[in-house]
């Protein structure tokens, strides 16, 4: 997967701009971002994510699940091309800080469709060999064209629910 700047990355770019702008305008936002260890988004240490206790369940699940030894949060949740990577991190960082501060998000938290796309691409990236016959789009151009890995392997990352 070495796409040029994808539509997703462009979205990320907009979000980064928004984050910087709003961050500068609203001091409290900046405070949240650092106090809640928002900058740790830029690290690959999974502990960075549990700085928010709402991530605790996923973190605990990951520690026990099969991919603990193979992949950290960012291996799955962030696109691996250099640009997409920081775009996504910034966008997530901003969105999560905002949600956490305002406490206005719905629980259980659930992955967004566009973020599941990122994860899917990462599954395929690591397992390209194995799934080369299954993963290429066979029916291109129609929404929902992949057979999502997580439909069958939903628990490899965070274990079974509860």
């Amino acid at each position, binding site marked *: 997967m070495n796409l040029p700047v994808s539509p997703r990355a462009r979205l990320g770019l907009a979000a980064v701009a928004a984050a910087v702008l709003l961050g500068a305008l609203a001091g*409290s936002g900046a*405070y*949240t971002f650092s*106090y*809640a260890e928002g900058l740790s988004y830029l690290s690959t240490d999974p502990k960075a994510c549990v700085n928010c*206790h709402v991530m605790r369940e996923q973190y605990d699940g990951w520690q026990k699940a099969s991919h603990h030894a193979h992949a950290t949060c960012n291996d799955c949740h962030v696109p691996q091309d250099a640009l997409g990577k920081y775009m996504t991190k910034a966008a997530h960082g901003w969105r999560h800080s905002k949600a*956490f*501060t*305002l*406490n206005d998000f*719905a*629980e*259980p938290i*659930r992955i967004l469709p566009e973020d599941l796309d990122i994860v899917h691409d990462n599954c395929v990236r690591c397992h390209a060999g194995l799934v080369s016959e299954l993963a290429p789009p066979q029916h291109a151009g129609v929404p929902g064209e992949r057979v999502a890995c997580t439909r069958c392997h939903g628990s490899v990352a965070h274990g079974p*629910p*509860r």
Partner: protein
Amino acid sequence: WSNVSTRKDEARRDVLRLAPIDETTTDPKEWGKSFPREYDGYIRTVDVERTKYGGSENIQKLDDDPKLRAMFDGYAFAIDYREERGHAYMLSDQRETERVTKKKQPGACLQCHASNLVAYREAGIAAGAPGKLTDGLTSKDGMAQLMTGFEKLCALSYDEATKKVQHPVSCLDCHDPESMAVRVTRPAFLNGIRALAKSEDSVPHFPSIERWRKGARSSEYDPNKDASRQEMRSMVCGQCHVEYYFKGEGKVVTYPWDDGLKVEQIEKYYDDAGWTDWKHAQSGASALKAQHPEFELWSQGIHARSGVSCADCHMPYKREGALKFSDHQVNSPLLHVARSCETCHPYSDAEVLSRVETIQARTKKMLDAAETATVDLITAIKKAKDAGATDAQLEKPRALQRQAQWRADFVAAENSMGFHAPQEAARILAEAVDLARQGQIAVLEAGVKK
């Protein structure tokens, strides 16, 4: 940001015991001082909210579904039979139902409608049981007090017995005051689950029972010792949400589980015991009344088998800041599917509700058919009787009525409209309809002249 720092604080806070509690503390307010979140939910069981087939409005079921009046003719349930509501009401609803005010009932009724541990134990001590009231309930003496007092109170009249209690089910009934661990305290349940363990019914949802069966069996199965925490999260509800009868002169609350938890195993128990709840006023059949077999039906379902407990759905975790606790506002999960269901089923609220509705609507349709067939049979027997049919001619139809009605009622009296075990509920109703229609055929074949 104040939000963030408050929550970091919360995450670090341990439980402070702000008021002493022990085996004598029946008043939930005292417990609430140390556990305010649980207490808040607990008292909110006064809330009244309806769902399509459940919820907490105590509407008269007999008006809602007039077939029930015909089915229960001659029995107290044909007088007053309501949709049940939150735990907060259990004691007052029992005191006020016309089944109690218009008919004589025993103290046995109290086993499931009150915080009665202290009352039982006091009666036990008065009757000579060893030890004192502050002994741990599950200690040998505590248990002796409980079991003795329980039998004493069952035998009293309801009016006498109910004076000895003040609160609906309370913290003490479900929790060890020292460790706060969940415990089971209902004598009939302790007896019943022991009998179930000894039976041959398969119980894949209770690994501790399967383990006990394979073991030496040197002591009886005891949930407070043997069951896992996850199992306890269902057994604590299975103490009351079960079919029961009052055994013998002493009116001892008894769970008919010697052969197992399935509808025909319970029927066999009653048949073997020669038990009949009442003689049907129209048909003269020896009928049975089913009562809230939630625990039994759930036991046949895929959720039980997958280790999903009553508390998982009816007391889902709730988050306040960094703290997670069990929602003690026990009610219909359909009022909060996000917390109750979506941790396991990651769909939208609308999708989850629609899945439940599909299951419940199918059940409702079959239930209507089964009740209709039962009422048709009752009418047929009555007509034949009026036309001069003999008891011998009516023996088979009446036996079929008993069987059919038992099954239809089992699903009707269960409170999830089939959700707790959809295919099993459907199977039971298919049998009900078959038996009831066979009963009509038997009446016609008896060939009574009109």
